[in-house]
C-alpha cells in the first residue's frame, strides 16, 4: 500500500524542519541546549497533560503479547517488554548526562489502541511487536501523523515491499533475510561443515560475547534474571535507535527521527561488531544474524543457582571475519533491484 499524497507532505514538512538540525551536525551535536534542564521522565502513564514535559521524546509501546499499562493481567512482561525497559533506562541515563528527555507515554497490547494514541498524544515514536496486518495499520497511522514506527517483530516481506510505509523502519529481520541466513549457513558459507538439519536464525543470543555483547547480556540478565533473547534485543535496540536519532537530529518529532534514520550516513552500534543502518529502499535494518543448532538454545538459570551450560556462541551470518560491510550485510534479504517498495 503506497502512502497518499498528504502523508508525503507531512513527512517532508517534518523533514524540512529536521534537516536544519541534521545536516552537517552528525558529530558536532551537543544536546545540552534543549532549553531548561529536563529530568528524564520514566514510567507508565498517559494522558496527564499537567505532567507532560516539553521537548521529551515521547514513545509508545505496542506489544500484542504483553500487558497493557494499568492492566491487572497476571501475564508477565514479555522479553520484548524487558528489552524496551532496559533501553528506556539507558536512554534516561544518557539524558541525565546530555540533557533532553525520553518518556514512555504508554504501553498497549492492541494496535487499535495504539492508533488512538498516535492520533491524540503527540507521539514521537511507536515501537511495535505486532502482527503484519497490525504493523501495516500502525505504519499508515504513523505516516499520517508524522510519527516514526519501529517494527521489532513482524518479519513479513510484504511490509518491506508492496506494503512499505515511509515512516516505518524494521528492526526485525525480514523472512527473506532469515531464509538467506539459513541458506548460507546450511551451505557452509559461514560454517566449517555443510548442514542439512536447518539451523534456527536469531537476531541475538545470550551466549554472544564479542563486540560488547557480553556486557549487554550481563546488564539484561542482572536486571531480569533471565537470558537476553532476540525479542529483548529488538526492544532494547529500537529504543536505542529512537533515542540516538533524536539526540543526533536535536529534535523530538517523529518526522525528524524518520529523516535521520533514513539518511545514508546514519549508523548505529547494536553490539554486533559492525555498523548497523537502515536500507534506503525498504527501511530494513542491515544487520548480521546468528544461526544456532536447534538444540543449542541457552538455558534459563537453574533453580539451584548453578551457572547453566550455555555451549558455544552461535554462528554469525555473514561471518564476522568478513568485517561485514554494507555490501556483505545486503547479501541477506531483498536487494534494491528486487524491492517492490516505492515511496510515494
Amino acid at each position, binding site marked *: 500500500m503506497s502512502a497518499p499524497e498528504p502523508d508525503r507532505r507531512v513527512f517532508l514538512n517534518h523533514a524540512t524542519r529536521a534537516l536544519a538540525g541534521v545536516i552537517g551536525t552528525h558529530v558536532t551535536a551537543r544536546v545540552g541546549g534543549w532549553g531548561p534542564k529536563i529530568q528524564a521522565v520514566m514510567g507508565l502513564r498517559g494522558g496527564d497533560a499537567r505532567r507532560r514535559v516539553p521537548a521529551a521524546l515521547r514513545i509508545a509501546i505496542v506489544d500484542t503479547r504483553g500487558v497493557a499499562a494499568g492492566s491487572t493481567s497476571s501475564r508477565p512482561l514479555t522479553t520484548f517488554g524487558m528489552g524496551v525497559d532496559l533501553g528506556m533506562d539507558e536512554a534516561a541515563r*544518557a539524558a541525565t548526562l546530555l540533557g533532553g528527555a525520553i518518556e514512555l507515554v504508554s504501553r498497549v497490547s492492541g494496535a487499535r489502541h495504539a492508533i488512538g494514541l498516535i492520533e491524540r498524544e503527540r507521539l514521537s515514536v511507536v515501537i511495535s511487536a505486532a502482527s503484519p496486518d497490525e504493523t501495516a495499520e500502525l505504519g499508515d497511522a504513523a505516516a499520517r501523523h508524522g510519527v516514526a514506527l519501529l517494527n521489532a517483530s513482524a518479519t513479513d516481506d510484504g511490509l518491506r515491499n508492496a506494503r512499505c510505509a515511509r515512516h516505518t523502519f524494521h528492526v526485525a529481520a525480514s523472512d527473506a533475510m532469515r531464509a538467506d541466513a539459513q541458506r548460507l549457513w546450511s551451505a557452509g558459507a559461514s560454517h566449517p561443515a555443510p548442514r542439512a538439519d536447518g539451523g534456527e536464525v536469531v537476531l541475538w543470543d545470550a551466549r554472544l560475547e564479542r563486540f*560488547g555483547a557480553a556486557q549487554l547480556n550481563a546488564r539484561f540478565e542482572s536486571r531480569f534474571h533471565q537470558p537476553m533473547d532476540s525479542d529483548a534485543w529488538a526492544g532494547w535496540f529500537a529504543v536505542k535507535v529512537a533515542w540516538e536519532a533524536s539526540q543526533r537530529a536535536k529534535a523530538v518529532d517523529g518526522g525528524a527521527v524518520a529523516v535521520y534514520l533514513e539518511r545514508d550516513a546514519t549508523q548505529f552500534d547494536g553490539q554486533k561488531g559492525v555498523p548497523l543502518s537502515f536500507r534506503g529502499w525498504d527501511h530494513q535494518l542491515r544487520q548480521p544474524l546468528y544461526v544456532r543448532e536447534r538444540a543449542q538454545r541457552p538455558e534459563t538459570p537453574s533453580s539451584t543457582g548453578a551457572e547453566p551450560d550455555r555451549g558455544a556462541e552461535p554462528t554469525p551470518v555473514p561471518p564476522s571475519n568478513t568485517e561485514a560491510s554494507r555490501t556483505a550485510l545486503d547479501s541477506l534479504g531483498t536487494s534494491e533491484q528486487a524491492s517492490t517498495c516505492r515511496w510515494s
Partner: protein
Amino acid sequence: MVMSRLILGIQCLTLAGLLTATGVAAQTRSAASRPASLLFVSNEGSRDVTVVRLPDLSVAATIPLRERPRGIQPSADRRRVYVALSDSIPTVQSPGDAIAVIDVASRKVIARYAGGTDPEQFAVTPNGATLYAANEDAGTASAIDLRTGKVSETMAVGIEPEGVAVSPDGRWIYVTAETSNTVSVIDTRSDRVVASFLVDVRPRAATFAPDGKRAYVSAEIGGSVSVVDTRTHDVITTIALGDRSKPVGVVTSPDGTWLYVANGGTNTVAVVDAAAARVVATIPVGRRPWGITISRDGARVFTANGLSDDISVIDTRTRTVVATVKVGKRPWGVALVER
C-alpha cells in the same frame, strides 16, 4: 601464515638488535650503567604481563596474574606500572577486580588496589596522586588515591565506559562510554562530572594533545576520530578512517603534529596529520591492534596485536614496522617505561 609471521618476527628481532643509531636505541646512552627501558604488555588471554627489554626487544620477564589484565599505564615517576584486572563475574565487585601495582625494578606485583567493578582503562594524573578508572559494567568512573590505594570517589558516567584520558595539566579527565556514545568530563578539582558530550558511534580510547588544547576520541563503529576542543568540551571535527577501520588506541606525537591510531579492523596504524585532520599514511601491523603507545622522542610506536599475539614496533620516520615481538595470548595494552 603463522610460521611466516614467526620467521618475520625473528628476522625483525635480529634486525632491531642491530639497530643502534636511532629512536629508542639512541636514548639508551649508556646501557651498561643505566637500567634498560622496558615495555609492559598486558595479555588478557594468557592472564599475564610480558616485559620486553629495549632496545634489543628481548623478553625480560613474564608476570603471571590470576585475573584478566587490560588497561596498563606507568606511574608518574615510572617506578611502577599499574594494570587493570577483571574477574569473570561482570557487574559484581569482587577482590578479582583490582588495579595491580607492578614494581618495575623487581618485576613483581607488590600491591593490589580496589578499582571498582570490572576496571578496564584508566589514566594516572601527572602529579602521580590519583588514578581514574572506567568501571565498564557499573557505568561509573572511580578515583583511586594512589597514596592509600583506596577509592576516594565514584562518579556516574555514560553506559559501558571504556577509555580514560587525563589532560597534560591534570585538570580534566575524559571518560568515553561505548553504548551511550558519550564522553564525560571530570573536573579533578572537585571530582565531579561537569560536562558530557556526544561523539561518533562506539567511542573507545581518548588522548589529549601535548598542549592540552585538543583531545582525540576514537570511535570503533563510526570508523573515525572525533577532535575535541578542550576549552568548550565540544567536538569540532571528525576524521574518517575508513568503514572497516574499527579504531581503538590513539596516541599523539610529542610535538602534537601526528596522531597514531590503531585500526583493529584493518590491522593497520593510521598516521593522521593533526592540523589537517586527515590520514597521511597507513602502516600494516599485526592482527587486531588495540593498545598503542609512543616513545618520549616520538621515534617509535608500539602496538599490542590481540589476534597475532605479538607487538609491532614502528619506526615513525620511515613509517614501517621494524620489529615484531611475540608476547602472551591476546595482548591488549602496552605501557612504556623509559630510562
